[in-house]
């Protein structure tokens, strides 16, 4: 058994790592995982950079921020597969909830445009929104959604708040709303502090949320170990996406060693059955959190380009070089090489127009056919990536 240290933050989408360890998918690949619970995303990035952990469950945009030179100088980080899509929820304070209800908003938890326009009417001045990290899918969801619903960038103050502190920050009136990965939105509802307004996938059907990130030199020098880890996590993701597994998964991830919270809380996000207000309304969100279904784990280079273009524009950097640098960090080549033997469906190309699939669709694969998840944005936004370079596969 080869020991491997994996870092994760306590969120329900750390489930593939925990399940790979607890249910033996890692052991089948000859790996002895040591799961290290971390307190901050910056800690995960730094420990990975310094080689104190071998791999990390990480917000998808973090390696892109590094590739754009926006972080500390650490060795290059590669994202080799996505671990999850979705799992985020937007929540508002009880005061805003009351205003929205007075205005007749029904909290359908589905229509992003209606919710965004209602929020625009309900909030007089600036809206302060908490996000877990400045490089996160949450930042992109909030920006995209609210600027498409009448908020100007000047109307928005996006503030970093560590997920376990979201509820307190809302209670202390430091923020008016937040977007965070589960279970931390449900945690705020449970404490009577917040109401859920939208699930992340209502804004963008398949927002990539966490990735498996390793050091570039590690994946190059230790291909067998990298492949073994990818296959173990891919199988754990497939297990998690089988029907009726999510309750068991909630029990496992909630243990004191991992999330250390009541399993009922983790179960809401894992099942996509969310209690949206302290008043007791529940909403069913099919596909709220996907690990493996519809080739969710394939790290499209076009998604690297999309995140890079958005981050670069906000930071005043050139979009073109940013997209090139980011695409080089998404290792579709390693995904093909290491997951082909496991039987993963492989798309014919590694770039595509993002946001163009309105419904789950059958497409030609490297061999035969495969189903791709719907990935549309609520406002019909599509993103055309730069043309692939000759060497890109």
């Amino acid at each position: 058994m080869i020991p491997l240290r994996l870092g994760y933050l306590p969120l329900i989408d750390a489930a593939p790592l925990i399940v790979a360890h607890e249910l033996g998918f890692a052991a089948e690949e000859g790996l002895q995982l040591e799961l290290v619970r971390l307190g901050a995303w910056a800690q995960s990035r730094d420990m990975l950079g310094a080689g104190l952990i071998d791999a990390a469950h990480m917000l998808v945009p973090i390696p892109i921020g590094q590739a754009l030179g926006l972080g500390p100088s650490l060795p290059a980080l590669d994202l080799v597969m996505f671990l999850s899509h979705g799992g985020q929820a937007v929540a508002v304070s009880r005061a805003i909830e009351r205003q929205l209800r007075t205005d007749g908003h029904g909290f359908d938890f589905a229509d992003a445009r209606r919710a965004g326009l209602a929020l625009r009417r309900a909030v007089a001045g600036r809206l302060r929104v908490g996000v877990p990290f400045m490089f996160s899918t949450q930042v992109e969801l909030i920006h995209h959604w609210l600027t498409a619903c009448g908020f100007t960038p000047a109307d928005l103050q996006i503030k970093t708040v560590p997920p376990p502190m979201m509820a307190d920050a809302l209670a202390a009136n430091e923020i008016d709303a937040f977007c965070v990965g589960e279970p931390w939105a449900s945690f705020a509802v449970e404490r009577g502090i917040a109401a859920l307004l939208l699930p992340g996938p209502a804004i963008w059907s398949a927002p990539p949320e966490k990735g498996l990130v390793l050091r570039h030199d590690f994946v190059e020098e230790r291909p067998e170990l990298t492949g073994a880890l990818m296959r173990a996590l891919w199988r754990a993701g497939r297990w998690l996406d089988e029907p009726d597994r999510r309750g068991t998964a909630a029990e496992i991830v909630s243990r004191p060693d991992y999330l250390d919270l009541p399993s009922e809380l983790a179960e809401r996000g894992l099942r996509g059955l969310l209690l949206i207000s302290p008043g007791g309304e529940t909403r069913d969100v099919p596909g709220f959190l996907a690990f493996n279904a519809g080739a969710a784990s394939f790290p499209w280079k076009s998604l690297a380009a999309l995140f890079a273009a958005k981050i670069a524009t906000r930071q005043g950097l050139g979009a073109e070089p940013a997209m090139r640098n980011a695409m080089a960090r998404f290792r579709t080549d390693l995904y093909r090489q290491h997951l082909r033997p496991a039987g993963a469906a492989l798309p014919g190309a590694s770039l595509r127009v993002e946001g163009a699939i309105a419904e789950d669709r059958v497409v030609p694969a490297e061999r035969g056919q495969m189903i791709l998840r719907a990935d549309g944005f609520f406002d019909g936004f599509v993103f055309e990536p730069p043309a692939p370079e000759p060497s890109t596969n």
Partner: protein
Amino acid sequence: MKKLLIVVVEPDPDRAQSIADGLGEAGEHDIRIIAEQTSLARRVAELRPDVVLIDIANPSRDILEELALASGPSERPVAMFVDRSDEQLTRSAIEAGISAYVVDGLRPDRLKPIIDAAIARFHMLQQLRAELAATRAALEDRKIVDRAKAVLMKARGIGEDEAYALLRKTAMDQGKRIGEIAQQLVTAAGLLGR
């Protein structure tokens, strides 16, 4: 030479004081402690420190990251991390469990003694924390073993030494710690209402 303003972000007052003491050995500096996690961004922005030191695992680090990214050259409260040219120092700091945010342009020869002192102090605190955890676990074990012995003595009418021997034998047979066996016994006894 102008004194540097160093902010230590640490909720535990004893740890904070210990770190401040350690930094005092690195020269004459103005050291402030921020214990409160809320409003951290505002406090740091107001103080405009030269160096911020914080535990690598402190979730509030991610707030400082935002501040570091947002700081333009004109405001620059805190730039990124320890000096980019000194990878070894960066690595030593990360290993010691410390992260540092440093104002842009601070000379490496002024920074190094501070980081070195912080690293030394963090190592010491890490050791203390590990020792404390071990002592606490041992104490917990002893308490639970005492209760388990009492259960056995009452239930089987045996003496203290015999009860302990029984616990030890069971633990060895099952390849577990005595503390674990004692915990199971006490839990079971509780369920059975004994």
